[in-house]
C-alpha cells in the first residue's frame, strides 16, 4: 500500500512539474513550438501513467497539491512551483482537475489547447464557469474542472488526520488497558499490534502529522500520553533511518510498553518534589525490570516478545551500558533501545514535571541532548533525530527576526533543519494569539523580507499551548 503511495508521490510530482512548465510555455510560445510540444508530451505521459488504474484526480487544498487524494510532499525543487500553481488555481476559482480514463485517447495537441484555456480563463469574470463552457464546447470529455469549495473536502488527507487522531486515543487506551490487565493477570497484545501497524502506516504517510501529535501533553494521564508520544517519536526516527515495517511495528509496541514498569510505582515517589531517598531511587530504578516482567507475562508470540523486551529494558542505559539496570551479560545496547532512549528523554524534557520550574522548549531539549551525544545517546541516531525534528522541532514556538511569533508546522523535504514552514501567530484582538499566515522559510524567492528564526521561545511566555495551534491548523483539533 505504501509502495502505491510512493509511486503516486513520484508520478504526481512529475505531473505538477510538467503542468507548470506547459502553462509557462503556452504563455510564451505558439502551438508549433518545440518546447510546448515537449512539455505537453511529458504532461501527457505523466497523466497516462497515473491514469492506468482509472482516472487522475488533482486537487489543491490549503496551498498543497493532492494527487489521487495523496498530499504531495514539499521538496526544495518543487516548493516554488507548487506555490505558484496553487495561486494559479486559486485565481481561477479552481479546486482541481479530473482526467478521466478516456484521457489516453486525448492528443498532446488537445492537451495544449486545454492548458491554454486554463491560462486564459483568468481574463474572464467567472473563470471557472467560462472554463466549464469552453471545455464542453471543445468536446474535451477526458477532462473535468472542479470548482474551489469553501468547505473542507472529505479527502484522504482528512481521513488520515481522523485516523491519526483515533490512533492516538486508541494507543492511549491500549497502553492503559495493557497496564491494568498486566497488573492483574495476562493481557494480550493483539490490539496494540494493530495500533502499532496503524501508527507505522501514518508515519510513512505523514510524519509531520505524527510529530505534531506527539506534542500533546496531558499531565493527568502522564504515563500513558508520555508512552504514546514516545512511540510516535521513536517510530518517526525508526522510519527516518530506514527500518522495515515489521521492525517499526516492534519499535512502536516496545515504545508503547516501555514504561509499563512505572505503573505500580507509588505516587508519593513519582510526584515527590525534591530529592529522592536512596530507597526511593531503588524503587524508581527497578521500573525497567518490572516492565520486562510485565511484558513477559503478556500473551504475545515468541518472535514479537523477543523483539519488544530489549527497548523497555535498555531505555535508561547509555551506549556504554552505564546507567540502569546493571548489566553483566548484555554486550551492547540494541538499536531499538537506543532509539527509545532518545525519544524518551526528548519527550520527558519537553514535559512539565513537578521537580523543575518549567519544561524545556523543544529546541532547548535538543540542545541539552546534543551536549550529551556519545555519552547518553548514540551520536548517529541523535544526529538523525535532530535532522528529522529540525533544530526547531514541529510544534515549537519560535521568534522570527521580524519580531513575530510562530509555530513550527513542518519541514519541507530538503529544506534544511533550520528552515521550517511556520504558522505566524497574530494578535486576536482579545489579548491572545490567533493563527495567521503559513510561511515557508525555505522558499528562496529573493524577496528582501525573507524571514528567519531568531530563537525558540517558551510557550509560557505567551500563555499558549503551541500544539493546539498545530493541531487546529492540521485539522486534528476536534476532540482534544
Amino acid at each position, binding site marked *: 500500500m505504501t509502495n502505491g503511495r510512493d509511486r503516486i508521490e513520484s508520478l504526481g510530482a512529475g505531473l505538477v512539474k510538467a503542468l507548470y512548465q506547459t502553462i509557462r510555455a503556452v504563455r510564451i510560445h505558439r502551438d508549433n513550438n518545440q518546447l510546448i510540444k515537449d512539455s505537453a508530451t511529458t504532461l501527457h505521459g505523466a497523466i497516462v501513467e497515473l491514469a492506468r488504474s482509472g482516472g487522475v484526480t488533482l486537487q489543491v487544498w490549503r496551498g498543497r497539491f493532492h494527487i489521487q487524494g495523496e498530499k504531495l510532499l514539499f521538496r526544495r525543487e518543487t516548493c516554488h512551483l507548487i506555490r505558484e500553481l496553487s495561486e494559479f488555481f486559486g485565481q481561477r476559482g479552481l479546486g482541481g482537475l479530473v482526467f478521466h480514463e478516456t484521457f489516453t485517447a486525448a492528443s498532446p495537441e488537445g492537451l495544449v489547447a486545454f492548458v491554454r484555456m486554463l491560462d486564459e480563463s483568468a481574463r474572464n469574470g467567472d473563470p471557472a464557469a467560462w472554463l466549464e463552457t469552453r471545455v464542453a464546447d471543445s468536446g474535451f470529455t477526458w477532462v473535468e474542472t472542479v470548482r474551489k469549495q469553501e468547505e473542507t473536502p472529505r479527502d484522504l488527507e482528512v481521513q488520515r488526520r481522523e485516523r491519526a487522531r483515533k490512533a492516538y486515543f486508541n494507543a492511549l487506551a491500549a497502553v492503559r488497558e495493557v497496564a491494568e490487565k498486566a497488573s492483574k493477570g495476562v493481557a494480550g497484545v493483539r490490539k496494540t499490534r494493530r495500533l502499532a501497524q496503524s501508527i507505522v502506516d501514518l508515519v510513512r504517510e505523514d510524519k509531520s502529522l505524527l510529530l505534531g501529535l506527539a506534542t500533546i501533553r496531558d499531565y493527568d494521564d502522564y504515563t500513558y500520553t508520555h508512552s504514546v508520544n514516545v512511540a510516535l517519536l521513536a517510530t518517526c526516527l525508526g522510519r527516518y533511518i530506514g527500518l522495515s*515495517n515489521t521492525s517499526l511495528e516492534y519499535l512502536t509496541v516496545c515504545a508503547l510498553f516501555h*514504561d509499563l514498569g512505572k505503573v*505500580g*510505582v507509588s505516587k508519593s515517589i513519582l510526584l515527590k518534589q525534591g530529592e529522592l531517598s536512596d530507597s526511593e531511587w531503588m524503587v524508581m530504578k527497578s521500573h525497567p525490570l518490572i516492565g520486562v516482567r510485565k511484558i*513477559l507475562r503478556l500473551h504475545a508470540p515468541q518472535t514479537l516478545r523477543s523483539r519488544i523486551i530489549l527497548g523497555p529494558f535498555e531505555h535508561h542505559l547509555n551506549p556504554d551500558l552505564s546507567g540502569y539496570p546493571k548489566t553483566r551479560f548484555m554486550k551492547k545496547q540494541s538499536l531499538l533501545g537506543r532509539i527509545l532512549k532518545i525519544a524518551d528523554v526528548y519527550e520527558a524534557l519537553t514535559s512539565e514535571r513537578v521537580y523543575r520550574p518549567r519544561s524545556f522548549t523543544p529546541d532547548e531539549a535538543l540542545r541539552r541532548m546534543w551536549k550529551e551525544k556519545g555519552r547518553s545517546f548514540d551520536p548517529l541516531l541523535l544526529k538523525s533525530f535532530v535532522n528529522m525534528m529540525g533544530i526547531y522541532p514541529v510544534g515549537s514556538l519560535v521568534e522570527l527576526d521580524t519580531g513575530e511569533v510562530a509555530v513550527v508546522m513542518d519541514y519541507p523535504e530538503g529544506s534544511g533543519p533550520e528552515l521550517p514552514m511556520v504558522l505566524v501567530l497574530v494578535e486576536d484582538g482579545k489579548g491572545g494569539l490567533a493563527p495567521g499566515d503559513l510561511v515557508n522559510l525555505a522558499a528562496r524567492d529573493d524577496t528582501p523580507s525573507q524571514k528567519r528564526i531568531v530563537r525558540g521561545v517558551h510557550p509560557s511566555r505567551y500563555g499558549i499551548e503551541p500544539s493546539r495551534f498545530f493541531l487546529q491548523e492540521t485539522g486534528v483539533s476536534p476532540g482534544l
Partner: protein
Amino acid sequence: MTAGIDHLSPAEGGAIGADKLEAARRLISSLLLARKNLSLYPEGHVIRMNSLEALARQMGAFLDRYGELKLEIERDGLGIEGEIIHTEPPEEGALPFTLYRDGLRWLAFTHGLQLAELTELLRIITRYTLLSEEPEGDIVTDLWEKGLPHIRYEAVDFFWDLEPEAELGQAPRREEDVASLRENTMDHWEPTPDPAIDPDAIELSQYDLAQIRTMVCLEEEGDPTAYLDALLDSLLQHHEQENFEIIIEIFEEEFRAALARRDFAVTFRILASLPAILDACPPEAHWAAPMIEDFFLSVSRPGTISVLLDIWPELDAVQAQKAMHTLRLLQPVAIPALAPLLARRQSAKIRDMLVDTIASLASRDMAPLESLIRTRDEAVMEKLVHVFVRLTSERATKCLVRLIRHPSRHVRQEAVKGLMKRGPGSLKDAFSLIEDKDETVRTLVLKQMGQSRDETAESILLQYLQNRDFARDQHGHVIACFTALGRCGSDRSVPFLRQTLVGQSWWPSFGRSAVREGAAAALAGIGTPQSLKVLDDAARSLNPVLRRLAREYRKG
C-alpha cells in the same frame, strides 16, 4: 457499523453487469475450494496445487477483463459494488465472518496478482479461521507484515468501537497513573542555556549514512542472544521468587523454540549462562537452585528434546558440532531422548560426536543409559552399544556383559570388542561367547583373545581346551582356539601342548587329529625355543602324522 448483508445493495447509477457478477461468483466458489484444499492437503499435493492454480488463472482472467476485484465484506456475506455475491451464516469457519471478525471491510485484488500472493492470503486466512481466546496474531497483522503487493485491504479497529472514545484529561485519575521522568539523569533544570546546535554539525555524511544502514541491517537480522542477555541480566536482579519463576519459564519456552529452529547458539547461551546466575544469587534466594535444576531437568526430557528427531538428519557437521555443545550441558535424563538420534541417517562423524556426547552425559549418571539396555529397538541398540564401549566404569562393563547376550549379532560383537579392551576381568565374560551360535562372534572372541600375549587369555584358553571334548563338526573351532592360544600363550602352555601333540595314542580318531593339529599350530604360534623344540622333536617322530604336522607348522 453495519452488521449484515442488508447493507449491501445495488450500486447507485446503474447496476453492475450480469457477466461481471457471475464471474465474481464463480471466482468466490474457486476461492472457497482452494481454501478448503489448502487446509486439507499438505504443501506440494497435486489437488492443492491444482485448485490454487485454477483460482489464480480465473482471477487473472477477471482482472484482465475488469481491472480489479474489490470484495466488500460483511458478517454474513461478500459483495462487489454493492451486490451480494456470496452468503454464509456468520459463524466460525465461514469466510466472510472470519474476515469480518478481524476487522477487514474490503479486500481488493489488483492486476499483476501472483499465485504466491493468493496462496499466502489463503494460508493466512486458514491459520486464523478458528480464533483462540487470546490469539497470537490475526489476518490483518499477517497481511500487513507480508505486504502482498497486489492485495489491498481496509481494516477497521473494530475493538475500539465498543467503548466511547475517552477525551484527554477526562479519564478518571488512577493512583498509579502519574509517573515522573526524573530518573533521566540529565533531566534537571539549569538556568544556563546550552549552546546552539550548529546546522553543519548535524549533517549526515555518506559515511554516517552507511553506518546507519549497517545498524539497520543488523537490527533487521535480529540477534536472539541479545534478548536472552537482557533476560539473564533481569534474572540477576530479580530476587523475588515469582519474578524469577516467570523468567525461567520464558527461558524454557525460548529453549524449545530455538531448538526447533536449530538455533544452537541460543540454546547454548541459555544452558551455559544459567549456572552463573545461580552463583550470583544471594543466600536468601534459596529457591533459585531447585528452580534452575528443575529447568535443566525439564529441557532434558523427551518433551523438549524429541524435536531433534525431525531436524537431526538435516544437520551438517558444523551445526551438529554446535548442537553437541548444547546437548552436553543437558542432564543425563536426556539420554533416552537422545539415543534414538543415533539411529537416524547421519554421517559417521556426526554419529561419533553424538556417541561421545551421550557418553559424557552417562558419565555423570549411568542410570538413564542403563535403562535403555532393555530397549527392543535393535537399530538404536546397535549404535548405543558404542556408548557403553566408550565408557570405562564398572557399571558400563556390566552393561556390556549383558549386551553380549543381546539378540543382535552386531550388538554382541561390539560388546565383545568393548569387553576385550577392558582387561582380565572382562575377558572371562567375553569368553563365555566362545561357543556362540554365530561363527563371526566366536571368531571375534578368539581374535580378541589372541591379540597379544596375555596371561589371563592364555589361562582361559588353556582351561577351556583341557576340559572340553569337541564334537566331530568342531574341527575348525578347535584349530581356531589353539591358534588363539598360540598368539596369547607362553611356555606355560608348552607341557599341555606337548602332551596333546606327542603324548597320545597313534590310532587315528577325530578328537585326536584335531587337537594334535591345534597343538602344533599353538606351539608354532608361541614361537619360543621351548615350544619350537617340541615341534622339532615331533618332526623326528616315527609317527608320520606328527612328522607332517611338525613340518607344516615349523615352516610357518
